[in-house]
């Protein structure tokens, strides 16, 4: 099996698995319990919190665990709007956000906020000047993702942050770093709120984290027993959080190596654009994330190619797994180049992938694509 769908989710690495299992066996206590058994569990949470904070250079007490990236994104957008809504009514986002951000902005629109959606260019970048023009005194929130989940374009978060603060130092900047966390070098200096997720970094599903800069207010959406300093109540998923902490430690150690390694895999797979005619890269070939390669094979329906690859044991995606259940005809990729979406296939990598796997995939595509192109929709 060749698993090239790591932007959807990743395999739990053996080391993380061992770590999590031994913790499950050792300690099932509720971290809120007053006895020492509970305190042990609480210490494990603190350890994980420190590990996550270390990746982005934050303090541990600026990290809050959530049930995952979706919840973190919902909370960031709706929670900031609720906290600062009295100070201003304009909110800004981009046209290529994950549905958990995009749909939260739709909700804000319903609640009477003025939503400005920035378009992207052919490579998937927002126009920084346009952003600068859009931010005014009335703007309370900007949310722009770091690495796009479908085609891997990396926005200049540092620049974006400084442009926003230049125009309005009170405007909050949130960035969805689910695809960037532990993969790209991101710093808490360049954002007020950051979304992270565990299962994209070889840890467990069901847990994510938010960085919230000290002093930034985000109203909580959940109410209950005071966990996560009241911000995200509900008994903590200690097992998954422990796995996230361990995975973050490992990823931080190996970030540069992994980056190079997947870069080679991506570069190898890119060869298919020389081998076959009419194969296009969606996103930025040179400066896109090495973890994602989105290709459109003209005249081949993305889903058909996906199933053809799957019969050869190669797993890819036609777009974000989160969007594949909706029947919308236009895909995010169409925002870059209209018409590319239906033939787009996303390959996404992890450090567990090898160059050989990419070579095998190239050979496979060379065989399958011409065959599939014989039967085009007429």
């Amino acid at each position, binding site marked *: 099996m060749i698993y090239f769908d790591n932007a959807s989710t990743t395999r739990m690495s053996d080391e993380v698995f061992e770590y999590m299992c031994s913790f499950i066996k050792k300690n099932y206590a509720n971290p809120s319990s007053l006895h020492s058994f509970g305190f042990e569990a609480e210490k494990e949470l603190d350890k994980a919190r420190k590990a996550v904070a270390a990746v982005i250079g934050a303090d541990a007490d600026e990290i809050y665990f959530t049930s995952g990236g979706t919840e973190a994104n919902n909370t960031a957008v709706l929670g900031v709007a609720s906290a600062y809504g009295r100070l201003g009514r304009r909110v800004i986002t981009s046209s290529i956000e994950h549905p958990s951000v995009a749909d939260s902005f739709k909700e804000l629109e319903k609640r009477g906020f003025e939503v400005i959606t920035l378009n992207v260019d052919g490579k998937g970048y927002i126009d920084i000047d346009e952003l600068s023009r859009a931010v005014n005194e009335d703007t309370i929130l900007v949310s722009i993702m770091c690495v796009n989940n479908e085609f891997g374009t990396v926005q200049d978060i540092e620049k974006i942050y400084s442009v926003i603060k230049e125009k309005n130092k009170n405007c909050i900047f949130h960035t969805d770093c689910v695809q960037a966390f532990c993969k790209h070098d991101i710093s808490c200096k360049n954002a007020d709120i950051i979304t992270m997720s565990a299962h994209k970094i070889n840890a467990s599903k069901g847990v994510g984290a938010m960085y919230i800069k000290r002093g930034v207010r985000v109203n909580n959406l959940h109410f209950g027993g005071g966990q996560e300093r009241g911000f995200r109540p509900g008994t903590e998923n200690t097992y998954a959080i422990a796995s996230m902490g361990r995975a973050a430690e490992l990823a931080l150690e190996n970030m540069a190596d992994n980056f190079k390694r997947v870069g080679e895999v991506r570069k190898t797979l890119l060869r298919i654009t020389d081998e076959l005619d009419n194969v296009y890269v969606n996103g930025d070939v040179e400066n896109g994330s090495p973890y994602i390669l989105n290709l459109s094979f003209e005249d081949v*329906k993305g*889903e*058909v*190619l*996906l*199933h*053809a690859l*799957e*019969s050869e044991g190669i797993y890819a995606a036609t777009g974000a797994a989160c969007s594949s*259940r*909706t*029947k919308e005809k236009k895909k995010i990729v169409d925002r870059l180049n209209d018409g590319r979406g239906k033939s787009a296939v996303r390959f996404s990598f992890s450090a567990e992938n090898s160059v050989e796997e990419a070579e095998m995939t190239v050979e496979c595509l060379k065989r399958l694509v011409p065959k*599939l192109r*014989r*039967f*085009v*929709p*007429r």
Partner: protein
Amino acid sequence: MRNILLVKYGEIATRGKNRYLIENRLIWTIIKRLELYEGYRVYKEQGRLLIVNEKKDFDYETVIPIVLNVLGVTAVCPGIEITDQSIESLREHALIHFKEHYPDGGVSFKVITKRADKRYPLTGNEVSADVGGYVLHNIPNLTVDVHNPDVKLMVELRNNAYIYSRVIMGQGGLPYGTSGKATVLMSGGIDSPVAAYLVAKRGVEIEACYFDSPPYTSERAKQKVIDLASRLADFTGGIRLHIVPFTEVQLRIYESTPPEKMTILLKRAMLKTAEKIAGSNGSVALVTGDSIAQVASQTMEAINAIDPAAGLPVLRPLCAMDKQEIIDIALKIGTYDISVRPYEDCCTVFVAKHPETKPKRSIIESIESKISDLDSLIDEAVQNTEIMEL
């Protein structure tokens, strides 16, 4: 006195010499479905069936939904059986039954008596009046309404007496497997499962046939058809699904056909394939979900061009139904939610933008006759068919 479930089965009662066969089939089906639960027995009782539990309490909550799914059952009535048919006994037991179901009264009612045993000393109306009066005097806040009562308290005098007040409608139709066998072409859409259900409801045993076209259709599309067939199995008590690998046939037709005629030839090939499967399983007809003029391949002209491809009769139970009528049935039988899952079922990659709506049979047949290896490809597909028992 014991708790029973009276089963009504309508149309069968009017049959002639084969009536006992059909009744026995219905009894057999019900026994089979209740096999998992201890103590249930089924008896014939003068145009009704009687379900009793001879070992334990009657578990209506479990048994009623199971029996309601049995095709051929028009209605079920939970009630009591009494052996002493004297008028005093009828009164007392009617009161017990009524008290159990309407302890606080507060409803209007009437008593209806059916007297199959004409030797009974009182007429039906006399029994009704007597029992009704007794119940009325012993439960507070009751009123009598003979035209539009809230509750119809039924007293049936047969070999034993039966008292019930609730009639729950079933599927109707004829017992499954009493009207021969047919093979249904199932796509995963809304229509074909409804067509399969309607035919099965007329007593026809069905096998289903799905055309799988990987990589143009996905595993999930296939699972959808498996789930639909499983849902139908709730009514039929099991179903056999044939999954035909159809990609090669489709690609061959694609290469030899003008795009606007592709679907017609494809559907002819599907009928030919289904006919071969039908031949090996004893089916005497094919069933499709076609509804006249719903799409290009279902116009009258298209049906005329497609139909002769099969030697067996092709039944189209939905042909005169509107989409909404079909959807209503799909919702009722619980296939709709499965059918609308968003996975590609019919390889849309092959569907032309503007398919022909008035194909000529002779032209279609002449194009088809030029695809020399079509029959051997179909044979190969049939040979490689995967069979699932659901």
